[in-house]
């Protein structure tokens, strides 16, 4: 009997203790952790874990460590919507996702609706990788922040960078995947024609991740006598396209957005030499600071930061910067105050200052245009090649104007 009374008393005490203590800030990572696209999701997870560990090493928020909750969205919007509900139920106030624009589109809409229905219990969506233009266009809202590049920004930098080393030529072939990202890219490539002084000789949109044999497309590139192919293709669609081009003996140069994804240089080998990529980070371009960041990342996660990982880390640095400037209200985080702080957040990354544009919540990312070369300072993936920076564009310089379709409603 005594035992039961003690146990009950203990339980009651715990309950009260729980109620009176300040709630820690919970960050929910809703990422693709299983299935065919898991490789991308796992990259983001490593980056987010690294950044959250960094926040906690500096004392967390309001004297408590920031908690990271991880959810697997299984690569699709449906599961992501469910996981968002689960995350909100567990008290997450900050939601992070990067691997898929489709999932990002679902999450940003769900977050917007949740915030309308639950005033005072808002959630903020930190988009660290979804590059679809609509996320900062028609779908933009006060609680969405994009720390990813997009087709406009990347293409503009790529074109200017390639032009500065006379690698662009005058005949450009636009080859993209037939979905929102590829269509954004196709438009961006046409938009930059005057600026880059080239003519778009042919545009192709092809099925996404379904084509094994790119030889027919290479025949089209050859027939169009293109100097350069600009492509937003990623993963296998990029690798197979470049392989087929090399196999046909074409000397066409490639301007890409995602050549720095893991596996591309290892699998492609020499065929990648001389091609260009617009990246959101490059260790060599970051100088001593870049090296320090890469070394620290490697020490903590066991791998050097690749592809989109740095942009995700920098995005969460911005979150950390905003958190530092928000005072707890009754021990809790006021998400609207946090979002306002994030609008004016500024951090120093190895590539320069990273700021946030309040008009459409698009981060002003510095972009590096690099070329694959054997004399790059840092070699990629145990090959003898690496990404050698050609030109670095600061955040303001690289930025594309905010889209007019974004009509942001600010909370009163």
């Amino acid at each position, binding site marked *: 009997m005594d035992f039961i009374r003690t146990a009950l008393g203990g339980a009651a005490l715990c309950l009260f203790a729980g109620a009176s203590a300040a709630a820690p800030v919970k960050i929910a990572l809703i990422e693709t952790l299983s299935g*065919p696209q*898991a*490789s991308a999701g*796992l990259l983001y997870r490593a980056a987010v874990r690294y950044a959250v560990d960094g926040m906690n090493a500096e004392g967390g928020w309001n004297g408590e460590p920031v908690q990271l909750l991880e959810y697997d969205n299984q690569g699709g919007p449906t599961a992501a919507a469910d996981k968002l509900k689960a995350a909100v139920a567990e008290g997450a106030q900050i939601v992070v996702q990067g691997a898929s624009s489709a999932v990002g589109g679902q999450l940003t809409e769900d977050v917007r609706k949740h915030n309308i229905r639950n005033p005072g219990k808002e959630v903020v969506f930190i988009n660290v990788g979804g590059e679809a233009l609509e996320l900062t266009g028609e779908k933009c809202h006060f609680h969405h922040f994009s720390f990813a590049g997009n087709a406009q920004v990347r293409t503009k930098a790529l074109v200017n960078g390639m032009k500065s080393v006379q690698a662009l030529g005058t005949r450009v072939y636009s080859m993209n995947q*037939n979905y929102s990202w590829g269509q954004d890219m196709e438009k961006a490539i046409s938009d930059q024609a005057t600026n880059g002084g080239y003519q778009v000789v042919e545009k*192709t*949109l*092809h*099925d996404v*991740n*379904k*084509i*094994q*044999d790119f*030889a*027919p*497309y*290479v*025949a*089209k590139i*050859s*027939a169009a006598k293109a100097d350069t192919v600009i492509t937003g293709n990623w993963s*296998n669609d990029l*690798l*197979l396209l470049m*392989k087929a081009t090399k*196999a*046909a*003996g*074409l000397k066409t140069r490639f301007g890409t957005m995602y050549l720095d*994804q*893991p*596996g*591309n240089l*290892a*699998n492609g*080998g020499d065929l990648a030499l001389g091609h260009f990529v617009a990246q959101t980070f490059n260790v060599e371009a970051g100088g001593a600071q870049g090296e320090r960041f890469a070394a620290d990342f490697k020490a903590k996660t066991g791998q050097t930061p690749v592809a989109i990982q740095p942009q995700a880390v920098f995005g969460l640095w911005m979150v950390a910067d905003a958190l530092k400037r928000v005072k707890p209200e009754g021990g809790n985080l006021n998400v609207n105050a946090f979002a306002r702080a994030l609008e004016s957040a500024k951090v120093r990354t190895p590539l320069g200052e990273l700021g946030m544009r309040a008009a459409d919540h698009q981060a002003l990312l510095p972009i590096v245009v690099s070329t694959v070369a054997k004399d790059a300072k840092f070699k990629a993936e145990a090959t003898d090649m690496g990404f050698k920076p050609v030109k670095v564009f600061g955040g303001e310089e690289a930025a594309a104007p905010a889209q007019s379709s974004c009509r942001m409603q600010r909370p009163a």
Partner: protein
Amino acid sequence: MDTFVVSLLNGAVYGLLLFMVSAGLTLIFGMMGVLNFAHASFYMLGAYFAYALEGTLGFWGALVASPFLVMGFGVAVERYFLRRVHHHGHAHELLLTFGLAFICAELIKLFFGNYPVNYRIPQAIDFAAFTVGSVGYPAYRVFMGGVALAMFGLMYLLLARTRVGIVVRSAIYKPRMVEALGHNVPVVFMGVFGVGAGLAGLAGAVAGAFYTTNPNMALELGAMVFVVVVVGGLGSLEGAMLASLLIGVVTSLAVSIDLSLADLLAHVGARDWAEAVGGLFTLKVSSLAATLPFALMLLVLLVRPGGLLGEKP
């Protein structure tokens, strides 16, 4: 004209590759009445085995050894897994192969990582066999086509002209009768399953070097292989050959057709209307290339449900 010839060649070689993978699948279906969902996984295993062995055996050695390893794996799958669930009916066998496909993909990721591996054509055969117009035609493509054709020839001779072939064919149509005549049908099943797996493995070892060897390669080819088998007729080797070539050539030629429904309607003076409507009317054929095989499958299922060369149901 050059583009047309190159497209035709490309399509034929891609078709032949599809045939290498689907040959085993259609044979196994004919024999056991079960679609083997793990078949494309054998293709992937072939590529990864060849990659793993390349260091010790060299490229050509690995190319020969890998199919035999996959064949051994296939035999083990039949002997220790499928045979146990055989008397529970087709649904169980189907589910088993389905699960096996997932396990293969995850194991590959566990051992070889999430990203494409460094398995490439050796420098020695990385040259143009001949040139059409200004474009070189890779020798390795010719080699891939040659391997597939040789394989088709051998399989055809084996099945049509030898005693073993007669036993296999009869075991496919009337297993109980063949058993009554004193042949060991389970061993025949095991053999066919093993050879089918080995052929997919060979295709993987050959194509993995030309395309990419990555943990998603089974998924990428898997759907297309099923389409081939359905279009060609379940269980028919010749049908698989015909369907593979058809799909390869159609996909390849469609890429160079920049026409849309709006262009077609222009002949009756309705172009402006079609372009105003947009959507399906302005979609170019070239952007649908990889989807056409599925449309073809739909058409075949509607018109000839048994497949092009399949038996009447």
